[in-house]
Protein backbone atom coordinates (compact mmCIF):
# COMPACT_ATOMS: atom_id res chain seq x y z
CA UNK A 1 0.00 0.00 0.00
CA UNK A 2 1.49 3.32 -1.01
CA UNK A 3 1.93 6.27 1.31
CA UNK A 4 -0.84 8.18 -0.37
CA UNK A 5 -3.42 5.49 0.25
CA UNK A 6 -2.67 4.34 3.78
CA UNK A 7 -5.68 2.95 5.67
CA UNK A 8 -5.70 5.32 8.71
CA UNK A 9 -5.45 8.34 6.42
CA UNK A 10 -8.26 7.17 4.27
CA UNK A 11 -10.43 6.40 7.33
CA UNK A 12 -9.72 9.85 8.75
CA UNK A 13 -10.53 11.56 5.47
CA UNK A 14 -13.75 9.66 5.06
CA UNK A 15 -14.67 10.27 8.71
CA UNK A 16 -14.28 14.02 8.32
CA UNK A 17 -16.18 14.12 5.04
CA UNK A 18 -19.02 11.93 6.29
CA UNK A 19 -19.36 14.06 9.44
CA UNK A 20 -19.53 17.18 7.32
CA UNK A 21 -22.09 15.62 4.99
CA UNK A 22 -24.30 14.65 7.91
CA UNK A 23 -24.14 18.13 9.42
CA UNK A 24 -24.91 19.72 6.07
CA UNK A 25 -27.77 17.41 5.26
CA UNK A 26 -29.35 17.41 8.71
CA UNK A 27 -31.61 20.48 8.28
CA UNK A 28 -32.78 19.22 4.91
CA UNK A 29 -33.45 15.83 6.42
CA UNK A 30 -35.49 17.36 9.28
CA UNK A 31 -37.59 19.37 6.83
CA UNK A 32 -38.27 16.39 4.61
CA UNK A 33 -39.26 13.98 7.44
CA UNK A 34 -41.48 16.54 9.13
CA UNK A 35 -43.29 17.30 5.92
CA UNK A 36 -44.68 13.76 6.09
CA UNK A 37 -45.96 14.13 9.67
CA UNK A 38 -49.12 15.43 11.26
CA UNK A 39 -49.08 18.80 12.93
CA UNK A 40 -49.05 17.43 16.47
CA UNK A 41 -46.25 15.01 15.64
CA UNK A 42 -44.10 17.83 14.25
CA UNK A 43 -44.23 19.66 17.55
CA UNK A 44 -44.17 16.64 19.86
CA UNK A 45 -41.09 14.99 18.42
CA UNK A 46 -39.52 17.11 15.65
CA UNK A 47 -36.63 14.69 15.10
CA UNK A 48 -38.62 11.45 14.98
CA UNK A 49 -39.20 9.65 11.72
CA UNK A 50 -42.81 9.46 10.58
CA UNK A 51 -44.47 6.32 12.00
CA UNK A 52 -47.75 4.64 11.13
CA UNK A 53 -49.59 6.89 13.61
CA UNK A 54 -47.87 10.16 12.79
CA UNK A 55 -47.63 9.76 8.99
CA UNK A 56 -49.78 12.40 7.35
CA UNK A 57 -49.82 13.88 3.85
CA UNK A 58 -51.94 16.85 4.91
CA UNK A 59 -49.09 19.25 4.12
CA UNK A 60 -48.78 18.08 0.53
CA UNK A 61 -52.53 17.98 0.14
CA UNK A 62 -52.79 21.59 1.31
CA UNK A 63 -50.03 22.68 -1.02
CA UNK A 64 -51.41 20.89 -4.04
CA UNK A 65 -54.97 21.97 -3.28
CA UNK A 66 -53.76 25.55 -3.34
CA UNK A 67 -54.48 25.66 -7.06
CA UNK A 68 -51.67 27.96 -8.19
CA UNK A 69 -48.84 25.93 -6.86
CA UNK A 70 -47.88 24.46 -10.22
CA UNK A 71 -47.99 27.94 -11.60
CA UNK A 72 -45.47 29.05 -8.94
CA UNK A 73 -43.24 26.13 -9.80
CA UNK A 74 -43.43 26.96 -13.43
CA UNK A 75 -42.60 30.61 -12.77
CA UNK A 76 -39.56 29.68 -10.68
CA UNK A 77 -38.41 27.27 -13.35
CA UNK A 78 -38.83 29.81 -16.16
CA UNK A 79 -37.03 32.54 -14.24
CA UNK A 80 -34.18 30.28 -13.13
CA UNK A 81 -33.59 28.59 -16.47
CA UNK A 82 -33.91 31.79 -18.51
CA UNK A 83 -31.58 33.73 -16.17
CA UNK A 84 -29.12 30.86 -16.15
CA UNK A 85 -29.13 30.73 -19.94
CA UNK A 86 -28.45 34.46 -20.28
CA UNK A 87 -25.83 34.50 -17.52
CA UNK A 88 -23.94 31.65 -19.14
CA UNK A 89 -24.26 33.02 -22.66
CA UNK A 90 -23.38 36.64 -21.97
CA UNK A 91 -20.95 35.76 -19.19
CA UNK A 92 -19.01 33.42 -21.46
CA UNK A 93 -19.03 35.91 -24.32
CA UNK A 94 -17.79 38.75 -22.14
CA UNK A 95 -15.18 36.48 -20.58
CA UNK A 96 -13.98 35.45 -24.03
CA UNK A 97 -13.67 39.05 -25.13
CA UNK A 98 -11.79 40.03 -21.99
CA UNK A 99 -9.39 37.10 -22.12
CA UNK A 100 -8.88 36.91 -25.88
CA UNK A 101 -8.79 40.39 -27.34
CA UNK A 102 -6.39 43.19 -26.63
CA UNK A 103 -8.30 46.46 -26.61
CA UNK A 104 -8.09 49.77 -24.84
CA UNK A 105 -9.67 49.63 -21.39
CA UNK A 106 -9.67 45.84 -21.27
CA UNK A 107 -8.46 45.49 -17.69
CA UNK A 108 -10.57 48.45 -16.57
CA UNK A 109 -13.63 46.76 -18.04
CA UNK A 110 -12.72 43.52 -16.30
CA UNK A 111 -12.41 45.35 -12.99
CA UNK A 112 -15.72 47.12 -13.53
CA UNK A 113 -17.48 43.86 -14.22
CA UNK A 114 -15.86 42.23 -11.20
CA UNK A 115 -17.09 45.02 -8.91
CA UNK A 116 -20.52 43.44 -9.05
CA UNK A 117 -19.19 40.51 -7.02
CA UNK A 118 -18.45 42.81 -4.11
CA UNK A 119 -21.46 45.14 -4.28
CA UNK A 120 -24.77 43.38 -3.64
CA UNK A 121 -27.38 44.11 -6.27
CA UNK A 122 -30.01 44.58 -3.54
CA UNK A 123 -28.47 47.98 -2.74
CA UNK A 124 -29.96 49.14 -6.02
CA UNK A 125 -33.43 47.82 -5.33
CA UNK A 126 -35.12 51.21 -5.26
CA UNK A 127 -33.57 52.28 -8.54
CA UNK A 128 -34.37 48.90 -10.09
CA UNK A 129 -37.99 49.20 -8.99
CA UNK A 130 -38.23 52.71 -10.43
CA UNK A 131 -36.73 51.42 -13.67
CA UNK A 132 -39.18 48.53 -13.84
CA UNK A 133 -42.11 50.84 -13.14
CA UNK A 134 -40.94 53.25 -15.83
CA UNK A 135 -40.58 50.46 -18.39
CA UNK A 136 -43.80 48.80 -17.36
CA UNK A 137 -42.09 45.55 -16.41
CA UNK A 138 -43.44 45.31 -12.87
CA UNK A 139 -45.21 42.04 -12.23
CA UNK A 140 -43.60 40.31 -15.19
CA UNK A 141 -41.15 37.41 -15.17
CA UNK A 142 -39.00 39.42 -17.60
CA UNK A 143 -38.18 41.82 -14.77
CA UNK A 144 -36.89 38.98 -12.63
CA UNK A 145 -34.90 37.44 -15.49
CA UNK A 146 -33.24 40.79 -16.21
CA UNK A 147 -32.31 41.40 -12.58
CA UNK A 148 -31.01 37.90 -12.02
CA UNK A 149 -28.99 38.00 -15.22
CA UNK A 150 -27.34 41.19 -13.99
CA UNK A 151 -26.80 39.62 -10.59
CA UNK A 152 -25.18 36.49 -11.97
CA UNK A 153 -22.94 38.04 -14.61
CA UNK A 154 -20.05 39.40 -12.48
CA UNK A 155 -19.13 36.08 -10.90
CA UNK A 156 -19.67 34.25 -14.17
CA UNK A 157 -17.36 36.59 -16.06
CA UNK A 158 -14.76 36.47 -13.33
CA UNK A 159 -14.61 32.67 -13.18
CA UNK A 160 -14.97 32.04 -16.91
CA UNK A 161 -12.35 34.56 -18.01
CA UNK A 162 -9.82 32.85 -15.74
CA UNK A 163 -10.62 29.53 -17.35
CA UNK A 164 -10.63 30.91 -20.87
CA UNK A 165 -7.15 32.31 -20.41
CA UNK A 166 -6.04 28.70 -20.03
CA UNK A 167 -7.53 27.56 -23.31
CA UNK A 168 -4.68 26.98 -25.72
CA UNK A 169 -3.98 29.93 -28.01
CA UNK A 170 -2.73 27.50 -30.62
CA UNK A 171 -6.15 25.88 -30.85
CA UNK A 172 -7.89 29.20 -31.45
CA UNK A 173 -5.23 30.22 -33.95
CA UNK A 174 -5.55 26.91 -35.77
CA UNK A 175 -9.25 27.67 -36.10
CA UNK A 176 -8.50 31.13 -37.45
CA UNK A 177 -6.10 29.77 -40.04
CA UNK A 178 -8.67 27.15 -41.07
CA UNK A 179 -11.17 29.93 -41.65
CA UNK A 180 -13.49 29.53 -38.68
CA UNK A 181 -15.29 32.70 -37.64
CA UNK A 182 -14.72 34.09 -34.17
CA UNK A 183 -18.21 32.88 -33.23
CA UNK A 184 -17.47 29.33 -34.35
CA UNK A 185 -14.17 29.43 -32.49
CA UNK A 186 -16.05 30.55 -29.38
CA UNK A 187 -18.94 28.12 -29.61
CA UNK A 188 -17.22 25.06 -31.07
CA UNK A 189 -13.68 25.20 -29.71
CA UNK A 190 -13.62 27.28 -26.54
CA UNK A 191 -16.98 26.60 -24.88
CA UNK A 192 -16.63 22.80 -24.87
CA UNK A 193 -13.22 23.16 -23.24
CA UNK A 194 -14.53 25.34 -20.42
CA UNK A 195 -17.59 23.18 -19.85
CA UNK A 196 -16.59 22.21 -16.28
CA UNK A 197 -16.23 25.89 -15.42
CA UNK A 198 -19.60 26.60 -17.01
CA UNK A 199 -21.17 23.92 -14.83
CA UNK A 200 -19.60 25.45 -11.73
CA UNK A 201 -20.90 28.87 -12.66
CA UNK A 202 -24.32 27.39 -13.41
CA UNK A 203 -24.59 25.85 -9.96
CA UNK A 204 -23.42 29.01 -8.19
CA UNK A 205 -25.83 31.14 -10.23
CA UNK A 206 -28.84 28.88 -10.07
CA UNK A 207 -29.19 28.35 -6.32
CA UNK A 208 -29.46 32.00 -5.20
CA UNK A 209 -31.95 32.67 -7.99
CA UNK A 210 -34.14 29.73 -7.07
CA UNK A 211 -34.03 30.63 -3.38
CA UNK A 212 -34.51 34.37 -3.75
CA UNK A 213 -37.47 35.94 -2.02
CA UNK A 214 -36.50 39.61 -2.22
CA UNK A 215 -36.96 40.46 -5.87
CA UNK A 216 -40.08 38.35 -6.47
CA UNK A 217 -41.63 40.10 -3.47
CA UNK A 218 -40.76 43.56 -4.75
CA UNK A 219 -40.86 43.25 -8.52
CA UNK A 220 -43.37 40.51 -9.23
CA UNK A 221 -45.71 39.85 -6.29
CA UNK A 222 -48.83 39.40 -8.43
CA UNK A 223 -50.55 36.04 -8.36
CA UNK A 224 -49.64 34.94 -11.94
CA UNK A 225 -45.94 35.80 -11.51
CA UNK A 226 -45.28 34.49 -7.99
CA UNK A 227 -42.29 32.20 -7.63
CA UNK A 228 -42.25 29.13 -5.42
CA UNK A 229 -40.42 30.85 -2.55
CA UNK A 230 -42.93 33.68 -2.58
CA UNK A 231 -45.81 31.28 -3.01
CA UNK A 232 -44.75 29.31 0.07
CA UNK A 233 -45.09 32.46 2.14
CA UNK A 234 -48.87 32.27 2.06
CA UNK A 235 -48.63 29.50 4.65
CA UNK A 236 -46.59 31.66 7.01
CA UNK A 237 -49.00 33.99 8.74
CA UNK A 238 -48.33 36.67 11.27
CA UNK A 239 -50.14 34.68 13.98
CA UNK A 240 -50.58 31.18 12.64
CA UNK A 241 -48.21 29.26 10.44
CA UNK A 242 -49.31 26.15 8.59
CA UNK A 243 -46.10 24.23 9.22
CA UNK A 244 -47.23 21.14 7.38
CA UNK A 245 -47.77 23.14 4.24
CA UNK A 246 -44.57 25.17 4.61
CA UNK A 247 -42.45 22.07 5.08
CA UNK A 248 -44.17 20.28 2.22
CA UNK A 249 -43.69 23.26 -0.07
CA UNK A 250 -40.01 23.48 0.84
CA UNK A 251 -39.54 19.75 0.28
CA UNK A 252 -41.10 20.04 -3.13
CA UNK A 253 -39.01 23.10 -3.94
CA UNK A 254 -35.83 21.09 -3.44
CA UNK A 255 -36.66 18.67 -6.26
CA UNK A 256 -36.30 20.80 -9.41
CA UNK A 257 -33.11 22.49 -8.29
CA UNK A 258 -31.69 19.10 -7.42
CA UNK A 259 -32.49 17.82 -10.89
CA UNK A 260 -30.72 20.83 -12.42
CA UNK A 261 -27.76 20.27 -10.13
CA UNK A 262 -27.50 16.63 -11.15
CA UNK A 263 -27.45 17.66 -14.80
CA UNK A 264 -24.61 20.12 -14.24
CA UNK A 265 -22.62 17.93 -11.89
CA UNK A 266 -22.33 15.30 -14.61
CA UNK A 267 -20.57 17.96 -16.63
CA UNK A 268 -18.38 18.83 -13.67
CA UNK A 269 -17.10 15.28 -13.47
CA UNK A 270 -16.77 14.63 -17.16
CA UNK A 271 -13.42 15.30 -18.70
CA UNK A 272 -14.23 14.46 -22.29
CA UNK A 273 -12.02 17.11 -23.78
CA UNK A 274 -8.88 16.00 -21.96
CA UNK A 275 -6.04 15.34 -24.38
CA UNK A 276 -7.14 17.84 -26.99
CA UNK A 277 -4.03 19.86 -26.57
CA UNK A 278 -1.03 18.22 -25.03
Amino acid sequence: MSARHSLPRSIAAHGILITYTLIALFPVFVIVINSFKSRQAIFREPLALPTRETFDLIGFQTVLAQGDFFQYFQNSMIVTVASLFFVLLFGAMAAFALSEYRFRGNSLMGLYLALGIMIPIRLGTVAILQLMVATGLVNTLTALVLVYTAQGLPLAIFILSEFMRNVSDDLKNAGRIDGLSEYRIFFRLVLPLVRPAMATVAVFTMIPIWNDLWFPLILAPSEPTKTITLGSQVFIGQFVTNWNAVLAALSLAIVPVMVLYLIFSRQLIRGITAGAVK
Partner: protein
Amino acid sequence: MSALTLSNVTKTFGTTEVITGVDLDVEPGEFCVFVGPSGCGKSTLLRMIAGLEDVTSGDVKIDDRRVNDVAPAKREIAMVFQSYALYPHLTVRDNMGLALKQAGTSRADITAATDKASAMLGLDPLIDRRPSELSGGQRQRVAIGRAIVRRPKLFLFDEPLSNLDAALRVATRIEIARLHRELGATMIYVTHDQVEAMTLADKIVVLRAGRVEQVGPPMELYNDPANTFVAGFIGSPQMNFLKSGPLGLSSAQMGIRPEHLEISTEAGQIAGKISHVEKLGGETLVYVLTEDHGLLTVRLFGEHDYQVDAPVWLTPDAARAFHFDEHGQRLRPGESSAAGRATP
Protein backbone atom coordinates in the same frame (compact mmCIF):
# COMPACT_ATOMS: atom_id res chain seq x y z
CA MET B 1 9.17 36.09 -57.81
CA SER B 2 9.51 35.01 -54.24
CA ALA B 3 7.27 32.94 -52.00
CA LEU B 4 7.62 35.26 -49.04
CA THR B 5 9.01 38.75 -48.73
CA LEU B 6 9.38 40.70 -45.53
CA SER B 7 10.39 44.32 -45.94
CA ASN B 8 11.40 46.29 -42.89
CA VAL B 9 8.84 44.51 -40.74
CA THR B 10 8.54 45.72 -37.16
CA LYS B 11 6.36 44.82 -34.22
CA THR B 12 5.86 46.72 -30.99
CA PHE B 13 3.84 45.70 -27.94
CA GLY B 14 3.05 48.95 -26.18
CA THR B 15 6.45 50.59 -26.00
CA THR B 16 8.62 47.47 -26.31
CA GLU B 17 9.94 46.67 -29.74
CA VAL B 18 9.97 42.91 -30.28
CA ILE B 19 10.80 42.88 -33.98
CA THR B 20 13.07 45.66 -35.18
CA GLY B 21 13.08 45.91 -38.93
CA VAL B 22 13.37 42.48 -40.50
CA ASP B 23 14.04 42.07 -44.24
CA LEU B 24 13.83 38.64 -45.78
CA ASP B 25 13.28 36.93 -49.11
CA VAL B 26 12.26 33.28 -49.33
CA GLU B 27 12.41 31.57 -52.72
CA PRO B 28 9.61 29.22 -53.84
CA GLY B 29 10.27 25.69 -52.64
CA GLU B 30 12.79 26.81 -50.08
CA PHE B 31 12.96 25.42 -46.54
CA CYS B 32 13.66 28.41 -44.35
CA VAL B 33 14.34 28.03 -40.64
CA PHE B 34 14.10 30.82 -38.07
CA VAL B 35 16.38 29.99 -35.21
CA GLY B 36 17.34 31.82 -32.06
CA PRO B 37 17.17 31.67 -28.28
CA SER B 38 13.79 31.92 -26.58
CA GLY B 39 12.42 35.44 -26.58
CA CYS B 40 14.23 36.44 -29.75
CA GLY B 41 10.96 37.11 -31.58
CA LYS B 42 11.05 34.16 -33.98
CA SER B 43 7.59 32.90 -33.05
CA THR B 44 6.18 36.42 -33.17
CA LEU B 45 7.62 36.84 -36.65
CA LEU B 46 6.01 33.57 -37.75
CA ARG B 47 2.67 34.63 -36.29
CA MET B 48 2.94 37.91 -38.17
CA ILE B 49 3.46 35.99 -41.40
CA ALA B 50 0.42 33.88 -40.51
CA GLY B 51 -1.65 36.97 -39.78
CA LEU B 52 -2.22 36.06 -36.15
CA GLU B 53 -0.35 39.18 -35.04
CA ASP B 54 -0.66 42.59 -36.64
CA VAL B 55 2.35 44.09 -38.33
CA THR B 56 3.25 47.43 -36.73
CA SER B 57 5.06 48.67 -39.82
CA GLY B 58 6.59 47.26 -42.97
CA ASP B 59 5.20 44.83 -45.53
CA VAL B 60 4.54 41.12 -45.56
CA LYS B 61 4.14 39.68 -49.05
CA ILE B 62 3.17 36.11 -49.83
CA ASP B 63 3.65 35.17 -53.48
CA ASP B 64 4.21 38.87 -54.26
CA ARG B 65 0.81 39.80 -52.82
CA ARG B 66 0.79 42.22 -49.90
CA VAL B 67 -1.10 40.46 -47.10
CA ASN B 68 -0.76 42.87 -44.17
CA ASP B 69 -4.52 43.29 -43.96
CA VAL B 70 -5.58 39.86 -45.18
CA ALA B 71 -7.20 37.46 -42.68
CA PRO B 72 -5.16 34.34 -41.79
CA ALA B 73 -7.61 32.05 -43.57
CA LYS B 74 -7.25 34.01 -46.83
CA ARG B 75 -3.46 33.99 -46.92
CA GLU B 76 -3.26 30.47 -48.36
CA ILE B 77 -1.02 29.29 -45.58
CA ALA B 78 -1.12 26.34 -43.20
CA MET B 79 0.40 26.19 -39.78
CA VAL B 80 1.59 23.36 -37.57
CA PHE B 81 1.66 24.24 -33.88
CA GLN B 82 3.90 23.09 -31.07
CA SER B 83 0.89 21.89 -29.06
CA TYR B 84 -0.65 20.24 -32.18
CA ALA B 85 -3.88 22.22 -31.64
CA LEU B 86 -6.16 19.53 -33.03
CA TYR B 87 -9.90 20.07 -32.71
CA PRO B 88 -10.88 17.82 -29.81
CA HIS B 89 -14.42 17.19 -31.00
CA LEU B 90 -13.51 16.07 -34.51
CA THR B 91 -12.08 12.82 -35.86
CA VAL B 92 -8.72 12.72 -37.60
CA ARG B 93 -10.44 12.90 -40.96
CA ASP B 94 -12.61 15.87 -39.99
CA ASN B 95 -9.66 17.62 -38.40
CA MET B 96 -7.81 17.41 -41.69
CA GLY B 97 -10.82 18.32 -43.79
CA LEU B 98 -12.18 21.26 -41.78
CA ALA B 99 -10.33 24.00 -43.63
CA LEU B 100 -11.52 22.70 -47.00
CA LYS B 101 -15.05 22.39 -45.68
CA GLN B 102 -14.89 26.01 -44.52
CA ALA B 103 -13.65 27.02 -47.95
CA GLY B 104 -16.66 25.33 -49.55
CA THR B 105 -14.88 22.44 -51.25
CA SER B 106 -17.09 19.56 -52.35
CA ARG B 107 -17.33 16.50 -50.14
CA ALA B 108 -15.71 14.24 -52.73
CA ASP B 109 -12.73 16.54 -53.11
CA ILE B 110 -12.29 16.76 -49.35
CA THR B 111 -12.32 12.98 -49.04
CA ALA B 112 -9.80 12.66 -51.86
CA ALA B 113 -7.50 15.21 -50.26
CA THR B 114 -7.69 13.73 -46.78
CA ASP B 115 -7.18 10.20 -48.14
CA LYS B 116 -4.07 11.30 -49.97
CA ALA B 117 -2.63 13.08 -46.94
CA SER B 118 -3.42 10.21 -44.62
CA ALA B 119 -1.76 7.73 -46.98
CA MET B 120 1.28 9.98 -47.20
CA LEU B 121 1.63 10.11 -43.41
CA GLY B 122 0.51 6.55 -42.63
CA LEU B 123 -2.59 7.74 -40.78
CA ASP B 124 -5.04 5.35 -42.44
CA PRO B 125 -5.61 3.12 -39.38
CA LEU B 126 -6.31 6.18 -37.22
CA ILE B 127 -8.59 8.07 -39.57
CA ASP B 128 -11.78 7.72 -37.49
CA ARG B 129 -10.24 8.32 -34.08
CA ARG B 130 -10.41 11.46 -32.02
CA PRO B 131 -7.30 13.35 -30.94
CA SER B 132 -7.63 12.15 -27.34
CA GLU B 133 -7.13 8.57 -28.56
CA LEU B 134 -3.80 9.33 -30.25
CA SER B 135 -0.23 9.46 -28.96
CA GLY B 136 1.86 12.61 -29.16
CA GLY B 137 3.66 11.56 -32.32
CA GLN B 138 0.43 10.55 -34.02
CA ARG B 139 -1.17 13.86 -33.11
CA GLN B 140 1.72 15.75 -34.61
CA ARG B 141 1.37 13.72 -37.81
CA VAL B 142 -2.33 14.60 -37.94
CA ALA B 143 -1.43 18.27 -37.47
CA ILE B 144 1.01 18.01 -40.37
CA GLY B 145 -1.67 16.19 -42.40
CA ARG B 146 -4.10 19.01 -41.69
CA ALA B 147 -1.56 21.41 -43.15
CA ILE B 148 -0.88 19.29 -46.26
CA VAL B 149 -4.56 18.89 -47.12
CA ARG B 150 -4.93 22.61 -47.72
CA ARG B 151 -2.20 22.70 -50.41
CA PRO B 152 -1.00 26.04 -49.04
CA LYS B 153 1.44 28.39 -50.69
CA LEU B 154 3.34 28.49 -47.45
CA PHE B 155 3.76 25.96 -44.67
CA LEU B 156 4.46 27.45 -41.26
CA PHE B 157 5.87 25.28 -38.48
CA ASP B 158 6.03 26.63 -34.94
CA GLU B 159 8.48 24.44 -33.01
CA PRO B 160 6.59 21.32 -34.10
CA LEU B 161 8.99 18.84 -32.52
CA SER B 162 9.46 20.38 -29.08
CA ASN B 163 6.84 18.21 -27.38
CA LEU B 164 8.13 14.92 -28.79
CA ASP B 165 10.71 12.64 -27.21
CA ALA B 166 14.21 12.41 -28.64
CA ALA B 167 13.73 9.31 -30.85
CA LEU B 168 10.41 10.52 -32.25
CA ARG B 169 11.90 13.94 -32.87
CA VAL B 170 14.56 12.49 -35.16
CA ALA B 171 11.98 10.35 -36.99
CA THR B 172 9.57 13.26 -37.46
CA ARG B 173 12.40 15.52 -38.56
CA ILE B 174 13.26 13.09 -41.31
CA GLU B 175 9.59 12.84 -42.24
CA ILE B 176 9.29 16.61 -42.53
CA ALA B 177 12.38 16.69 -44.75
CA ARG B 178 10.85 13.95 -46.92
CA LEU B 179 7.56 15.83 -47.18
CA HIS B 180 9.40 18.95 -48.21
CA ARG B 181 11.09 17.05 -51.03
CA GLU B 182 7.86 15.34 -52.14
CA LEU B 183 5.64 18.41 -52.01
CA GLY B 184 8.23 20.89 -53.17
CA ALA B 185 6.44 23.46 -51.04
CA THR B 186 7.85 26.54 -49.39
CA MET B 187 8.23 26.01 -45.66
CA ILE B 188 9.00 28.37 -42.81
CA TYR B 189 10.07 26.58 -39.68
CA VAL B 190 10.70 28.05 -36.25
CA THR B 191 12.90 26.29 -33.73
CA HIS B 192 15.32 27.03 -30.93
CA ASP B 193 17.20 23.83 -31.67
CA GLN B 194 20.16 24.49 -33.93
CA VAL B 195 20.39 20.78 -34.85
CA GLU B 196 16.91 20.92 -36.39
CA ALA B 197 17.88 24.11 -38.16
CA MET B 198 21.10 22.62 -39.56
CA THR B 199 19.51 19.35 -40.70
CA LEU B 200 16.35 20.74 -42.30
CA ALA B 201 17.13 24.14 -43.69
CA ASP B 202 18.03 25.39 -47.12
CA LYS B 203 18.32 28.77 -45.51
CA ILE B 204 18.74 29.64 -41.85
CA VAL B 205 17.73 32.98 -40.37
CA VAL B 206 19.45 33.56 -37.04
CA LEU B 207 17.50 35.98 -34.86
CA ARG B 208 18.47 37.75 -31.68
CA ALA B 209 16.33 40.28 -29.81
CA GLY B 210 14.07 40.90 -32.81
CA ARG B 211 16.94 41.48 -35.20
CA VAL B 212 18.31 39.26 -37.96
CA GLU B 213 21.91 38.42 -37.15
CA GLN B 214 22.69 36.43 -40.28
CA VAL B 215 20.93 34.69 -43.15
CA GLY B 216 22.44 31.89 -45.17
CA PRO B 217 22.64 28.18 -45.93
CA PRO B 218 23.59 26.05 -42.90
CA MET B 219 27.18 25.41 -43.95
CA GLU B 220 27.77 29.06 -44.72
CA LEU B 221 26.67 29.99 -41.21
CA TYR B 222 28.83 27.25 -39.78
CA ASN B 223 31.92 28.04 -41.79
CA ASP B 224 31.55 31.78 -42.10
CA PRO B 225 29.67 33.26 -39.14
CA ALA B 226 29.20 37.01 -39.15
CA ASN B 227 29.61 37.53 -35.43
CA THR B 228 30.17 35.82 -32.10
CA PHE B 229 26.44 35.24 -31.59
CA VAL B 230 25.99 33.24 -34.77
CA ALA B 231 29.32 31.49 -34.23
CA GLY B 232 28.25 30.46 -30.74
CA PHE B 233 24.71 29.51 -31.67
CA ILE B 234 25.41 27.34 -34.69
CA GLY B 235 27.38 24.18 -34.03
CA SER B 236 27.28 21.78 -31.11
CA PRO B 237 29.12 21.68 -28.80
CA GLN B 238 29.43 25.44 -28.79
CA MET B 239 32.43 27.24 -30.24
CA ASN B 240 35.17 28.19 -27.79
CA PHE B 241 35.93 31.88 -27.45
CA LEU B 242 39.47 32.74 -26.48
CA LYS B 243 40.84 36.07 -25.35
CA SER B 244 43.35 37.33 -27.89
CA GLY B 245 45.62 39.11 -25.45
CA PRO B 246 47.38 36.07 -24.01
CA LEU B 247 47.69 34.60 -27.52
CA GLY B 248 49.35 37.74 -28.89
CA LEU B 249 46.71 38.48 -31.57
CA SER B 250 45.51 41.87 -32.76
CA SER B 251 41.79 41.01 -32.74
CA ALA B 252 39.70 41.18 -29.56
CA GLN B 253 38.50 37.59 -29.51
CA MET B 254 39.28 34.37 -31.26
CA GLY B 255 36.72 31.64 -31.85
CA ILE B 256 37.69 28.05 -32.41
CA ARG B 257 35.38 25.05 -32.75
CA PRO B 258 35.91 22.20 -30.27
CA GLU B 259 37.09 19.85 -33.03
CA HIS B 260 39.85 22.26 -34.07
CA LEU B 261 41.60 22.34 -30.71
CA GLU B 262 44.45 19.91 -30.39
CA ILE B 263 45.01 18.35 -26.99
CA SER B 264 48.34 17.10 -25.73
CA THR B 265 49.66 15.83 -22.40
CA GLU B 266 53.16 17.16 -23.07
CA ALA B 267 53.24 20.61 -24.65
CA GLY B 268 51.07 23.22 -26.39
CA GLN B 269 50.03 26.84 -26.56
CA ILE B 270 47.51 26.98 -23.71
CA ALA B 271 48.00 25.24 -20.39
CA GLY B 272 45.01 23.86 -18.51
CA LYS B 273 43.55 21.14 -16.37
CA ILE B 274 40.88 18.61 -17.34
CA SER B 275 37.68 19.32 -15.43
CA HIS B 276 35.33 16.80 -17.00
CA VAL B 277 35.24 14.13 -19.71
CA GLU B 278 32.13 13.02 -21.61
CA LYS B 279 32.40 9.78 -23.57
CA LEU B 280 29.73 9.40 -26.23
CA GLY B 281 31.22 6.36 -27.99
CA GLY B 282 31.69 7.94 -31.39
CA GLU B 283 33.27 10.99 -29.89
CA THR B 284 34.77 12.19 -26.64
CA LEU B 285 34.28 15.66 -25.24
CA VAL B 286 37.01 16.92 -22.92
CA TYR B 287 36.35 20.03 -20.85
CA VAL B 288 39.55 21.84 -19.96
CA LEU B 289 39.77 24.63 -17.41
CA THR B 290 42.34 27.23 -18.43
CA GLU B 291 43.55 30.21 -16.51
CA ASP B 292 43.22 32.81 -19.26
CA HIS B 293 40.17 31.58 -21.21
CA GLY B 294 37.99 29.77 -18.69
CA LEU B 295 36.41 26.46 -19.62
CA LEU B 296 37.20 25.21 -23.13
CA THR B 297 35.69 22.22 -24.91
CA VAL B 298 37.74 19.81 -27.00
CA ARG B 299 36.01 17.34 -29.29
CA LEU B 300 37.90 14.18 -30.14
CA PHE B 301 36.67 11.44 -32.45
CA GLY B 302 36.57 7.92 -31.13
CA GLU B 303 37.26 6.82 -27.57
CA HIS B 304 39.97 8.46 -25.52
CA ASP B 305 41.07 8.04 -21.92
CA TYR B 306 41.76 11.21 -19.98
CA GLN B 307 41.87 11.59 -16.23
CA VAL B 308 40.04 14.43 -14.53
CA ASP B 309 42.47 16.94 -12.96
CA ALA B 310 45.32 15.85 -15.28
CA PRO B 311 47.33 18.79 -16.68
CA VAL B 312 47.04 19.18 -20.49
CA TRP B 313 48.03 21.62 -23.19
CA LEU B 314 45.81 22.86 -26.02
CA THR B 315 46.82 24.18 -29.43
CA PRO B 316 44.23 25.87 -31.68
CA ASP B 317 44.42 25.19 -35.41
CA ALA B 318 45.25 28.73 -36.56
CA ALA B 319 43.86 28.13 -40.07
CA ARG B 320 40.41 27.21 -38.70
CA ALA B 321 40.18 30.04 -36.19
CA PHE B 322 37.71 32.93 -36.43
CA HIS B 323 38.62 36.43 -35.30
CA PHE B 324 36.21 38.98 -33.86
CA ASP B 325 36.49 42.65 -32.91
CA GLU B 326 35.54 44.12 -29.55
CA HIS B 327 31.86 44.37 -30.65
CA GLY B 328 31.75 40.69 -31.49
CA GLN B 329 31.77 41.33 -35.26
CA ARG B 330 33.79 39.02 -37.44
CA LEU B 331 37.15 40.15 -38.76
CA ARG B 332 37.88 38.41 -42.01
CA PRO B 333 41.44 37.95 -43.33
CA GLY B 334 42.46 40.96 -45.39
CA GLU B 335 39.91 43.26 -43.78
CA SER B 336 40.99 46.05 -41.52
CA SER B 337 40.05 45.73 -37.89
CA ALA B 338 37.72 48.73 -38.09
CA ALA B 339 35.03 48.33 -35.47
CA GLY B 340 31.28 48.68 -35.96
CA ARG B 341 31.05 47.07 -39.37
CA ALA B 342 27.44 46.51 -40.41
CA THR B 343 26.06 43.00 -40.44
CA PRO B 344 25.52 41.56 -43.89
